[in-house]
């Protein structure tokens, strides 16, 4: 390995005059990365998330016990007890191992919701904003109806109708989470659609589908990504809330909300049972918020200078 290689890669990425499409795209990604790296709070958020992802991936290797193995003789032992780093819960299961496997569930929920809700919001919002007229009125009134319900109550109703379980919880959260994205996408579309570059591409004969997907979406997506990362905390908390109410992940599953729910009964005498998963939820929520803050600086299309 020569020492010059990274510096030539850097030079290639920072070239004033890129010579190919690939280089131009790589260069703009690299510029974004440099901006993000300058924001140390975001880097902390990113580090926490990377750590959690690694924990989730390598949970079988890192776990000290089977997360489902009960040991009623050693129930409710404090952190540090005989190799149980975070202690044991009411059925004697190792909290540390359950936490690791729970990270998988939490990230699974987050990723599914993050893929479904913004996409639905983006499609509905941009269509409403670009087409306007009756389409806009109808789509936005539907959005208003969804917004009018308190989020958790609506999710509860969906789960009650669909049946308890992690997939239905994800579906219910997605169905309650899309309206704000639709609103944002519509507002962005309204400003974008009257701009000269949209007029210019219309004058080249581009149809509405091409304009919406190729010209409006790329500009909406950045603000949606920021909003998603800021909402992640809320999504996790809603998932945890559903778990806590017994409508999300079902018991023996080590979902963090469900774990808090189980620990609630002992919170006064055995604080760690509820506190440890609570801290995990706090960490992942904080990490997403910090990252979202930095992404806003990177992705803001107006701050491209």
């Amino acid at each position: 390995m020569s020492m010059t290689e990274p510096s030539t890669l850097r030079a290639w990425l920072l070239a004033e005059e890129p010579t190919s499409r690939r280089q131009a795209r790589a260069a703009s990604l690299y510029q974004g990365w440099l901006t993000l790296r300058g924001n140390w709070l975001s880097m902390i958020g990113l580090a926490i998330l990377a750590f959690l992802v690694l924990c989730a991936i390598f949970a079988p290797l890192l776990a000290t016990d089977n997360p489902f193995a009960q040991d009623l003789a050693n129930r409710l032992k404090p952190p540090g007890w005989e190799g149980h780093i975070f202690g044991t819960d009411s059925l004697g299961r190792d909290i540390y191992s359950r936490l690791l496997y729970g990270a998988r569930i939490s990230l699974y929920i987050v990723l599914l919701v993050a893929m479904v809700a913004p996409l639905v919001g983006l499609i509905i919002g941009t269509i409403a904003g670009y087409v306007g007229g009756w389409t806009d009125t109808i789509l936005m009134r539907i959005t208003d109806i969804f917004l009018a319900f308190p989020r958790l109550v609506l999710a509860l109703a969906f789960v009650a109708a669909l049946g308890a379980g992690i997939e239905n919880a994800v579906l219910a959260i997605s169905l309650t989470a899309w309206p704000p994205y639709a609103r944002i996408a519509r507002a962005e579309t309204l400003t974008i659609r009257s701009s000269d570059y949209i007029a210019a591409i219309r004058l080249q004969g581009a149809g509405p589908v091409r304009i919406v997907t190729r010209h409006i979406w790329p500009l909406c997506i950045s603000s949606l990504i920021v909003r998603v990362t800021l909402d992640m905390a809320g999504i996790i908390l809603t998932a945890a809330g559903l778990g806590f109410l017994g409508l999300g992940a079902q018991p023996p599953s080590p979902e963090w909300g469900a774990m808090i729910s189980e620990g609630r009964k002992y919170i006064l005498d055995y604080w760690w049972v509820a506190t440890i998963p609570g801290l995990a939820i706090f960490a992942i929520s904080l990490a997403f918020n910090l990252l979202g803050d930095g992404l806003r600086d990177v992705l803001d299309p107006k701050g491209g200078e």
Partner: protein
Amino acid sequence: MSAVEIRDLTVWFGDGDERTDAVKSATMVVEEGESFGLVGESGSGKSTVLRAITGLVPTWEGTIRVMGQPLGRRRDRTFYKTVQMVFQDPYASLHPRMTVDAVLSEVLGLHGFRDVDARIDKLLRDVGLGPGFRFRYPHQLSGGQRQRVAIARALAPEPRILLLDEPTSALDVSVQAEILNLLTDLRAEHKLTYIMVSHDLGVVGHMCGRVAVMQHGEIVEELGVTDMREMRTRHPYTKHLLESALRSVR
């Protein structure tokens, strides 16, 4: 055959009580190969005329003919291959997330050209930008460079008629002259017809052969550029406009 013929064109915004007529029964004829100027103060409806021709404003009545063909509500591909437009503000007329290359290849693709790479190189050379600008984003370009890209985009479908909506008013004075010279050269090279909107009589005097003066949505006078230079006007508003332009120069 006249390139653009407009008869009794009325353009309005809003409906019912809120309707305002931006252009009131305007009539003008632009011959092929001509450079025609539309002047007037802001709000006189001169840009609206261009937007009605291109179909960006759908609420108009009257007759518009382009190359002899009357226009309806909808414009087809052949229209966009004949008529193109350059916008006023080069900072607003380029998509912030698309490189020069992406903008031009999309346009060329829309018009069904196959030899996209060669054409992009030629277009960039035509507007005085080297191949080094091809993969840049708009924020990496100056105002003048952006306007050159916008002109290249308008030239991509090889149009016959170019509508220029104050193409230099958002630029520095020194850059203005460069862009105007570029437009003059391109017209000679590609045998284009120009309709240029401007509030700057100096620019119009430099670029155009004939000028129509607009006030409150009406064309009050049409005159040759020599008549304009020698102040041979019939309408008092034209005289007023010319005098105030002269005062501002001194």
